[in-house]
């Protein structure tokens, strides 16, 4: 046979050779497929986490304490992590802010952290020492994943993890005067920052909105911080007092323009803040984090882009994407043309498609493509296909 041989005894370092030998033993599977059965959190495995504790914060928010796999590289306060959670057997990826201490902060003796109140789970406090992480999830009405996590998450469940990401963080040398402008679950990344850096921050104002006192996530912990003078806390309960407007800002935080501001919350709040900071000429002092994914408009048909082929076309809601692509000269994989052979599946990078057999809508949002069968799927909105 004149096949390219990757014999375990030829070339490469000793670990590489050992790996190739192990692959000869396990083919057609990989050694990892067997190791995952016993040690899913080991070094070198796909990054996973095990939920250790589920701690209720408010009636619709929970903190999950998670044991990350050995490959977890840590995070900076304020960052988020993408997690892959199975809901009704289907894996969904979502991003949530990390609220735990970072391992780096724990190692710095200058910033010890003592529990302020018994309201917060002690496990969350000590998480950095044992390498665990925590995320705080608020149930969004109709949110498939958040509702599942808040109401049905159980300790012991395995989830998929990505490395921490995001630029909504404090600089290494934090500014003297800070304003955190938050609403609802927008407090979660800020709590991550406060827990880690509070002792190195001098003047912190937190202007936080929530429907009422009981709905303030980390309410007791924030109030305790305020009571010991670590932060200046302004709670706005919107059920009674209405939403914070930019006109209120000057009265609530008179020196807001002298502060570096980190804002996180609903799009309406962030849009208003960006406009206000811009109009005042201090746009560079505002750092924002937008939470909610773009809501996809679904309808009949739409603009379809075959990303790698560079073809864009308009497709109606009754034409299979396979036919539309072929018509435009895109080299489409195809098979039975009736939805049974799965020979035509391609990744839908983002957008919405409708199954022509039963009308079911499938959506995908960057960066999590969903594989779809082009022969039975028609555009139900703008679609980007990885072809």
């Amino acid at each position, binding site marked *: 046979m004149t096949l390219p041989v990757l014999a375990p005894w030829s070339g490469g370092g000793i670990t590489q050779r050992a790996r190739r030998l192990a692959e000869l033993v396990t083919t057609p599977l990989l050694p990892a497929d067997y190791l995952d059965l016993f040690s899913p959190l080991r070094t070198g495995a796909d990054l996973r986490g095990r939920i250790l504790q589920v701690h209720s914060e408010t009636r619709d928010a929970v903190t999950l304490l998670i044991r990350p796999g050995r490959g977890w590289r840590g995070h900076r306060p304020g960052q988020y992590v993408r997690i892959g959670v199975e809901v009704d057997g289907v*894996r969904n990826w979502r991003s949530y802010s990390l609220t735990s201490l970072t391992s780096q902060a724990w190692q710095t003796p200058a910033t010890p952290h003592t529990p302020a109140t018994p309201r917060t789970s002690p496990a969350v406090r000590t998480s950095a020492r044992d390498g665990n992480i925590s995320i705080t999830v608020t149930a969004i009405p109709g949110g498939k994943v958040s509702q599942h996590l808040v109401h049905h998450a159980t300790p012991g469940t395995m989830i998929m993890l990505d490395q921490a990401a995001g630029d909504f963080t404090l600089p290494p040398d934090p500014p003297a005067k800070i304003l955190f402008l938050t609403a609802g679950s927008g407090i979660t990344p800020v709590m991550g920052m406060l827990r880690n850096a509070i002792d190195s921050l001098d003047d912190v104002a937190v202007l936080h909105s929530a429907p009422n006192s009981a709905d303030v996530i980390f309410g007791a912990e924030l109030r305790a911080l305020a009571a010991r003078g670590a932060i200046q806390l302004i709670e706005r309960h919107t059920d009674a007092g209405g939403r914070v407007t930019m006109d209120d800002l000057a009265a609530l935080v008179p020196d807001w323009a002298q502060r570096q501001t980190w804002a996180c919350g609903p799009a309406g709040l962030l849009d208003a803040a960006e406009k206000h900071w811009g109009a005042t000429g201090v746009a560079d002092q505002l750092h924002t984090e937008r939470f909610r994914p773009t809501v996809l408009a679904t309808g009949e048909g739409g603009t379809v882009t075959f990303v790698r082929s560079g073809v864009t076309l308009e497709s109606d809601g009754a034409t299979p994407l396979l036919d539309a692509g072929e018509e435009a000269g895109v080299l489409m994989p*195809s098979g039975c043309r009736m939805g049974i052979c799965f020979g035509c*599946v391609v990744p839908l990078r983002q957008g919405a498609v409708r199954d022509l*057999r039963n009308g079911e809508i499938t959506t995908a949002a960057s960066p999590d493509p969903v594989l779809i069968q082009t*022969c039975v799927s028609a555009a139900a909105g703008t679609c980007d296909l990885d072809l």
Partner: protein
Amino acid sequence: MTTTLAESATSATPAASPAADPTMNPDTKAAKTPARNGSRLAVTRPAMRVPQQKPSGKPDPTAHLSPQQIEELGRELDAIREEVLASRGAGDAAYIRKVIKTQRILEMGSRAVLLASLFPPAWLVGTAGLSVAKILENMEIGHNIMHGQWDWMRDPKIHSTSWEWDHASPAELWKHSHNELHHTYTNVIGRDNDLGYGIMRVDEDQRWVPAYLGQPFYNLINACLFEYGIAAYDLEIGKYLKHRKNGKDGKNGKDRATFRRDGTKVLHKIRQQVTKDYVVHPLLSGPSFLPTVGANAVANLVRNLWTHSVIMCGHFPEGVETFAKSSIEGETRGEWYLRQMIGSANISGSKAMHLMTGNLSHQIEHHLYPDLPSNRYAEIAPRVRDLMERYELRYVTGPLHQQVASAWMQVITLSLPNGVWENARTDPAGVARQGATAAARYGARAASRLLRRVVSRTS
């Protein structure tokens, strides 16, 4: 898994030309979409039905159904599908994960026991365990995952685009010949090569040629070497040879470059499989080298015989219908369902039997819904059966031994031209005479062909 989701194995093929495909003939289908449209979903309006004239003279078992009844049957089957889809969830995901985990532990455990296979009880236990592990891997796990039955979980490790199985045939080639050709053109003579694998005659409506006389023997050999048989089949060797003989660059043949590329993949896969079973694991066994080689050979043989038997039961037993190419022109969804139902046969038995057959014991349900999770076939089977009985269609089923015997009887009796086997009982002398005459005539013709060739070469 050797491939990841990103480097998915689906190969791009140019658009099928509507003109070259009889099922896409614009004249025969009453589609609401334009004729250029290649989608088989496009055929929605039933045409007038004409009972099929079968070459063997057998009656058309669907002659009593009106086009409206067939579409109603299709709607009922669609409703069953929707019900399963609506209730598909965490329990199903847990099921396939449990089967995969169990299979992997069983395989690892069996291979560990075989390290001491010099000791006969260890050989027996290890070989039995490995046989079961290989059967589970091929049937309930590999076959069904590669069908896309578990794609909905969006787990890149349990996905039709990334799965590779413990088998001589690479997943990519198998998916093409099985999912695309066999499941779309089930039992259509000339389109579905699973019907006798291109080497046998398993239905009276297939034309007899003398080469079929040897088919009981071919079938036995194929059963023993089944995984290699499938690899050769998926490689479409016959198609390639035909193409070479005709010497044309056609859509129906297989060109040399494609054949060579696919051939390399098959050889590579076989080499990996053989190295694992007959070199690496025996070497790891040290002094038990030879017993371990034997254990792997026996496990592969057991797997081959078992899978061959189960698969024979799917379409070969008596009572399963075949179809002429022309009968599927402009086929509606209802008609497609109808063809799948009467073109397949089930095996009755225990839960363990269903698991070990990869639920192909529910072949009828599998052919109706090849992409529904296999663990759900059992619950819909009574409803499918009831539906077929209501529409006066025959639900072919029976215990394994009966169905295997039936399939083998088909292979044996159909190795002879239609009617010969039956006549042999009543009039053996007459049949022998006829046979001798036919053989003499065939021999004379072959001799004259040879003579003519010799003459033309010498002159």
